[in-house]
């Protein structure tokens, strides 16, 4: 916890937030400031109203004057209350706008980061922290929280002044009592923080169990394997453990609560006692008595609020630090000069030399010593068992990962020397785990806004990919939006249709390299076959890199690269590899024997 505070001070965080906010909405700071001041005056004013009334009654003013006074109080209260509400409304609107800006900045930053970084554990942790920082009481409330602390400090000082004016000794006593209260809450925090992680795990376990148990897909398994008893038992076990854990915590809360209640009751009693003492010594009027009583007791409120605000401030300070740490991650293409990559519509050669790759945190190489040249227009299949490193190799080829050892060359130049965004333009890819955007089908295909999308081209590619029949059956055609969860009127596509949509997207992009990552795993043989024929047709002038563990599907490829445990162990055409009678041939025979 302490480490991350070090890098960002309160003041620099304050400046950062103000700067970002002011850029969008000037004068927000003053608005906050007034809002906090008025928000503090309103309750203070209202607690002293009874004192004031006592005073005017005591003075025996004429009834008319009393009425005028009360109406004056009413007018001031109304004015203050309305001012408070207006300022509050205005600053809430601003906070919501600020939130929007930060959300957008965050999304932009996320997308501009290196894929390798964001997929790895370091980037991931920073990303999650920053995302949580954007929640309520996080970044947006930083300024409000800081101002609250300042104002409450003023209130605190004011109360102190009143009390020490009466008697400095009493002031010391009250301060001591307050310090005692703070200590109680500090001890409480230490105890509570102790089992925090353990409780979080139990909590997640309970949620996970109840989620799977209530999942309609799991219902079949629950019925067939009579899992209901075990699930009930397990979830009850964990709920009871959670209950025990929280019982412990709330017993601590109970004790500290009682302790602080007692302390504040004694402060109250002490205050009364002290005022009795003054009363007998100097004599007090009712309004004086009430004024001192209210001032001293409101000291309690000030302190409570101050502690609370400090806590919130600390929390939002951490949030801002987390966010800034994320924003400070280096984006790609920021610092270096790059070779310009002319966008060739023609395929180009790629050469992989001595490539090795290790994931962060893993001590085994995912790929080692890969040497491979992919000629322009060649169709290559990368095959291998699960975990052989196929996907890693493709990610490296796409420059999504940077190779730690060895190099990849495009037209003889190391791909690191190209701007990544330019390099990405060379590739169209169909990954097996893609998701869709909650926008029109056309935009999902073009990855542009609907206005920018070339609709004729969309029609062309959905024809080619075989999706047009489905699109015609939809009322709004390719204007239909996707993802039903987001919008009731949207559509969700079936597995096969999704594959075709992904293919359409790749076709729309029309890049010289086409990458297919196991795109047919869930299709029946005939649709699978149709899709292969399509790939074969559509990829005529392109370089194709095809990842699969179905050896049967490599038919349209010119060359097969067989990966085993991160190494290329065989390459060649299908016939060559069969003639070689190595591992590939073995695996092929294993599958082929059933088809003879």
């Amino acid at each position, binding site marked *: 916890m302490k480490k991350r505070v070090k890098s960002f001070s309160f003041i620099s965080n304050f400046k950062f937030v103000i700067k970002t906010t002011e850029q969008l909405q000037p004068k927000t700071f003053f608005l906050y400031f007034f809002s906090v001041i008025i928000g503090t005056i309103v309750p203070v004013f209202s607690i002293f109203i009874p004192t004031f009334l*006592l005073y005017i*009654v005591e003075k025996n003013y004429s009834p008319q004057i009393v009425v005028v006074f009360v109406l004056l109080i009413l007018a001031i209260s109304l004015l203050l209350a309305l001012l408070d509400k207006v300022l509050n409304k205005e600053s809430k609107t601003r906070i919501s706008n600020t939130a929007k800006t930060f959300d*957008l900045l965050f999304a932009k930053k996320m997308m501009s980061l290196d894929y390798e970084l964001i997929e790895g554990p370091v980037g991931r942790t920073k990303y999650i922290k920053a995302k949580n920082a954007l929640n309520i009481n996080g970044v947006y409330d930083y300024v409000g929280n800081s101002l609250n602390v300042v104002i409450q400090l003023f209130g605190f000082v004011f109360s102190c002044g009143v009390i020490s004016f009466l008697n400095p000794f009493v002031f010391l006593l009250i301060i001591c009592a307050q310090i005692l209260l703070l200590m109680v809450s500090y001890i409480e925090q230490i105890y509570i923080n102790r089992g925090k992680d353990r409780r979080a*795990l139990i909590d997640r376990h309970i949620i*996970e169990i109840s989620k799977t148990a209530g999942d309609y897909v*799991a219902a079949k398994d629950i019925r*067939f394997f*009579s899992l209901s008893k075990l699930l009930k038992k397990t979830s009850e076990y964990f709920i009871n453990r959670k209950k025990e854990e929280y019982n412990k915590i709330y017993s601590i809360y109970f004790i500290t609560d009682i302790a602080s209640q007692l302390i504040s009751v004694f402060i109250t009693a002490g205050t009364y006692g002290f005022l009795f003492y003054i009363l007998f010594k100097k004599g007090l009027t009712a309004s004086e008595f009430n004024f001192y009583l209210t001032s001293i007791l409101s000291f309690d409120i000030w302190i409570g609020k101050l502690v609370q605000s400090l806590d919130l401030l600390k929390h939002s300070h951490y949030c801002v630090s987390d966010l800034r740490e994320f924003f400070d991650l280096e984006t790609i293409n920021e610092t270096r000069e790059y070779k310009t990559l002319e966008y060739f519509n023609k395929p180009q050669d790629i050469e992989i030399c001595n490539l090795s790759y290790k994931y962060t945190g893993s001590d085994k190489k995912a790929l080692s010593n890969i040497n491979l040249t992919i000629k322009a227009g060649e169709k290559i299949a990368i095959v291998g068992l699960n975990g052989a490193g196929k996907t890693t190799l493709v990610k490296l080829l796409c420059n999504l990962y940077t190779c730690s050892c060895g190099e990849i060359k495009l037209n003889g130049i190391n791909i690191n020397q190209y701007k990544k965004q330019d390099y990405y333009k060379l590739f169209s890819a169909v990954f097996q785990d893609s*998701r869709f955007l909650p926008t029109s089908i056309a935009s999902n295909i073009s990855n542009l806004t609907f206005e920018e999308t070339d609709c004729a081209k969309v029609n062309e590619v959905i024809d080619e990919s075989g999706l047009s029949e489905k699109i015609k059956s939809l009322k709004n055609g390719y204007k239909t939006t996707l993802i039903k969860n987001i919008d009731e009127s949207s559509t969700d596509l079936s597995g096969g249709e999704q594959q075709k949509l992904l293919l359409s997207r790749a076709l729309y992009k029309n890049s010289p390299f086409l990458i297919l990552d196991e795109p047919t795993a869930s299709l029946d043989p005939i649709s699978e076959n149709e899709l292969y024929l399509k790939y074969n047709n559509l990829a005529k002038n392109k370089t194709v890199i095809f990842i699969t563990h179905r050896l049967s599907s490599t038919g349209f490829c010119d060359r097969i690269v067989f990966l085993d445990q991160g190494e290329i162990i065989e390459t060649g055409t*299908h016939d060559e590899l069969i003639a070689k009678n190595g591992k590939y041939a073995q695996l092929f025979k294993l599958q082929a024997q059933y088809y003879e």
Partner: protein
Amino acid sequence: MIKKRLKIDSIIRGIKLVNLLMPKYIPNMVLFVVFSSIPIYTNIFFSAKIIDEVIGKCRLKYLLLYLVVMVIISIFFTLISKFGWKYVRVNQLISGDWEDSFLNQKSFTLDYEQIEDNKVRELRQQITDNREFGGLNVLVIRTTYLIKSLLNLIISFAMIVSIFKIRSVPSCRGLLAFANSSACSFILFVLTILLAVFLGYNAQKGIHLKSTKSKELSTTQKKAHFLIDEYLSDNKTGKDVRIYSQEKIIIEIIKGMLNNYSLINRQFISLQFSVDNKITVINLILNSCVYIIVSLKTIAGTFSLGVMLKYISLISQFLRNVVNLSDSIVRLQENNLYLKNLYEYLDLETKTDKNGTFHALPSDHFSTLKFINVSFKYPHHKEFALQNISFEIKKGERVAIVGKNGSGKTTLIKLLCRLYDPTEGIITLNDDNIKNYNYSDYLNAFSVVFQDYRLFPLTIGQNISASDQYDKNRVIKCCNLVGLNNFIYGLPNGLETNISKDFDENGIILSGGEAQKIAIARALYKNSSIVILDEPTSSLDPLSESEIYADFNRIIKNKTAIYISHRLSSCRFCDKIIVLDKGNIVQIGNHESLLKDKDNLYYSLWNAQAQYYNM
């Protein structure tokens, strides 16, 4: 006017339900609520006494007496209420978990047809999604707050009522006389009641509007953050974002959604503004009226200063509780809607638990299974998913069901497993309609690995055995059979390892292949007479796939097996292959006989794959 009523029976049922799940919750809540209210009034009462003593006779003895009594009462009631509060807090934290667990137990007993029914699913989803807005926990909180505000209202009103008392003080003239007159008291009384009612009414309407809007707000917010919270948070989408330069379109979409959200947020803020303003203004006006009358009456000598102070404190208490009461009533009314969902789910009627006599089906007592002219339509669907299906499976046979995507393979399995009942025709087991068997006995006859199988957040051993007291050796044997033995030995906790890292630091994340193997091991452990595999090897590589198939045939020996697979190679050695197309059986027979018919579906399915192997 708000039409919704407080439905007492719905509230009572909810409270009974809570009492069943968390017996200590409600008594402690009431304890807390009642005992935490009382010190407020004793404090007001005694401070008035003290003030009077201060300006009056100023006797130390009495001053101290009042103070001590006040402090003792305050400590006593606070202690007891805090004690209740402790239990309340704990129960509030786990109430959602209990409710979920309770609902899951209901869902375990539902007919599968209901489970897949969209309406039932939506109902369940709504109950969970809306828990923060309404449900059992909200019911408890709001009911007790209703009690609290009602109690406070009664106490504060009872204490305030003497304000209207008239005591004639002859020496008064003008305003003072008016303030002391019965007319004034009457006007004040009527005004207080009217304004209180008006305040309550306005508060109710406002709170209702606010909570409706705030629900809309929270759903738009969830949607607005979909791309940030889900799409961008998903590691895998990062590839698409970069390769397809989706940055611009994503920002456009997020902007659109966030704008929509801020629009609703702004509406919400202004609504809040207008509602709060109304309440504040009414509050202040009524307060001021009371201030004037009370001050004047005090000047006239009707009240002492202490009493005046008491009334000033009480009137704000009174008004606050008018608002609180309205709030509780509105929330309870709204909560009825959510409770209705809950009760609807709990009251779902199932077919299977209807009484009747069922035949027992001893395990290992299987001879034949027949489909006789079975047709099937999914509920709420127009087209038949299966039509006129007839076939027979004998003990010990290996049967494959093949066909294109969407031809009805999985539906057929669902009928066979009695997850659905046929629309027409019958299915028989040992020549007896399967409906006549005891449901759980029937399910026991099958071990199934579904295409969309699920593993559970339990340990590996528990997942395979479906029990917490399992036969270790048997589990290990099953693991060996699917080739998991090395994997299990490699784990420090072996079979006791949890299958997720999310809730257990020592857990592991399974790869698709490992998970599938565990699912198959689970089916083997069950050891039923009929084994069904629905595309069980789609995420395995060819080596593991062929190993599993080879072993499987060996393992299940003379058991009956039904396979569904896109890999036709695995059907080859089946005794019988059923070819489905658009819900009809188009071919039935063994591999050789089916392959002879070159115009038919099986040949083209086979050829689509085999061509690559016969080059």
